[in-house]
């Protein structure tokens, strides 16, 4: 039963390579049902694996340009010098071992009528259903002065990799007494507590290594995730070191000047020694090319199946999707991926997908041994994912150090578990 399917996949790869070289791209895979997943991050790689696990006769192709995935969770520890970037990096060997075809190309378009995904090398792959999971794109049209070339002087470090290492190096090279400025974007964006975890861990580094320095957060919001917990912890661990400037206090950055590392707000200019600009975001570009992103830049989905509300047969998961009450996190991406995989299989078998429930938990480290979390349980309601009332919430505002230490340990345990499930 399943040996022919494996052969089809292998032939598919061979054919694609050979004919692409001749310049006449064919479709990979025909008779058998194939699900194509675009994007091999927490959402896409989890979904590909869950699909194959639920039905090993199903042909699954994962399209991802990079051969090495660099995970964002815990990358703030890399920036603060607490961890090396290699600990964030994962190959697709494990995914491939499951019998999933991994194609290291960028998807460049979708032909809805023919149900085909186009790849950068010109090849095309036919799908029975398509899952789009490209994560976010940073918007370089949102803050005047913040262009793709400005990221060298003012790193975003919001996609882990070279940017993460660059921000770490800039901090290491900064003189004691310097000013670090982080600009935090408006909602919605990837990892709502992330900028504040980053501020905390940079403060930890400054306190130990450059105690005369200070850190300013310029915020485009008046509230942020786990705010009371973060602010109480800053008071306790880093008194006077972190200044948070809210939207109504003039925190919104309206322009930047990379040549002088200046961040401009309606209330004045901030000259930084190290400037970390986290710009506004939207779904990865392929989402718009596939016709699944709306005017907000994000992708509306059915909360039961994650099928696009704009294009039947295409599902969107992870950061790119409009998750309703679910924040954009790796935990969310992985949980959505598994629900989506089950729904895709039900739909391929002409069965009604079951009503799901999902969980999210975001851990943040305020210091290496001080963890806090926010959790939620979600279900479909009125066409969106809504929080189950009475469940979820944040860690308690006051708790003994032993509880904070336990949550830091559980945070690390979570990272090892989830990356094991997605990539090992």
């Amino acid at each position, binding site marked *: 039963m399943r040996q022919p399917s*494996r052969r089809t996949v292998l032939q598919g790869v061979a054919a694609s390579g050979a004919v692409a070289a001749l310049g006449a791209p064919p479709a990979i895979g025909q008779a058998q049902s194939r699900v194509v997943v675009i994007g091999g991050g927490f959402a896409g790689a989890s979904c590909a694996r869950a699909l194959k696990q639920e039905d090993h006769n199903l042909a699954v192709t994962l399209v991802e340009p990079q051969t090495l995935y660099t995970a964002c969770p815990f990358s703030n520890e890399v920036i603060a010098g607490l961890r090396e970037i290699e600990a964030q990096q994962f190959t697709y060997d494990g995914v491939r071992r499951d019998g999933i075809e991994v194609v290291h190309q960028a998807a460049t378009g979708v032909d809805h009528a023919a149900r085909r995904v186009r790849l950068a090398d010109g090849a095309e792959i036919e799908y029975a259903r398509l899952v789009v999971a490209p994560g976010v794109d940073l918007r370089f049209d949102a803050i005047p002065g913040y262009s793709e070339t400005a990221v060298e002087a003012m790193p975003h470090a919001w996609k882990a990799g070279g940017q993460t290492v660059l921000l770490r190096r800039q901090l290491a090279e900064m003189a004691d007494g310097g000013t670090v400025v982080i600009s935090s974007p408006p909602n919605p964006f990837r990892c709502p507590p992330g900028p504040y975890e980053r501020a905390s861990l940079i403060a930890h580094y400054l306190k130990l290594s450059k105690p005369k320095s200070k850190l300013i957060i310029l915020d485009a919001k008046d509230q942020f995730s786990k705010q009371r917990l973060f602010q109480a912890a800053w008071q306790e661990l880093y008194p006077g070191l972190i200044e948070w400037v809210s939207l109504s206090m003039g925190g919104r950055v309206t322009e930047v000047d990379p040549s002088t590392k200046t961040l401009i707000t309606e209330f004045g200019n901030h000259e930084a020694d190290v400037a970390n600009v986290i710009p506004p975001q939207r779904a990865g570009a392929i989402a718009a090319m596939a016709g699944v992103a709306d005017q907000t830049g994000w992708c509306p989905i059915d909360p039961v199946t994650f099928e696009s509300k704009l294009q039947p047969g295409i599902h969107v998961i992870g950061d790119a999707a409009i998750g309703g009450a679910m924040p954009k996190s790796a935990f969310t991406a992985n949980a959505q991926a598994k629900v989506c995989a089950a729904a895709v299989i039900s739909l391929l078998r002409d069965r009604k997908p079951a009503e799901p*429930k999902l969980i999210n938990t975001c851990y943040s480290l305020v210091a290496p041994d001080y963890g806090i979390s926010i959790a939620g349980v979600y279900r479909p309601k009125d066409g969106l994912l809504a929080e189950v009332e009475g469940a979820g919430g944040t860690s308690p505002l006051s708790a003994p150090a032993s509880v904070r230490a336990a949550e830091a340990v559980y945070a690390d345990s979570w990272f090892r578990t989830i990356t094991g499930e997605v990539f090992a």
Partner: protein
Amino acid sequence: MRRELLLLAVLGVVAAMPVAAEAPAGATACAGCHAPAGRDLPVPTLSGRTPESIVADMQAFRSGSRPATVMDRIAKGFSDGETRAIANWLASKDHASAKP
């Protein structure tokens, strides 16, 4: 070539395994924190547990009689019926993935 054969052999084993029933609502999310057996991580594995003991723990987390860092907040999101379905599925998965 040898890797290809090995791969086919491994897949052959996978093909021979019984398939677990469809996961009930919420069940697949537990694996975000709870790893399969054999990894020895701080968050305990749920593998090898009886459905009854999982249900009892979840009820204790929900009522607050068992202190927790996060499970109290998660357990409150599931009814008794949902919790039991999840516990049964987790145990059935153990059975499905047991080594031949």
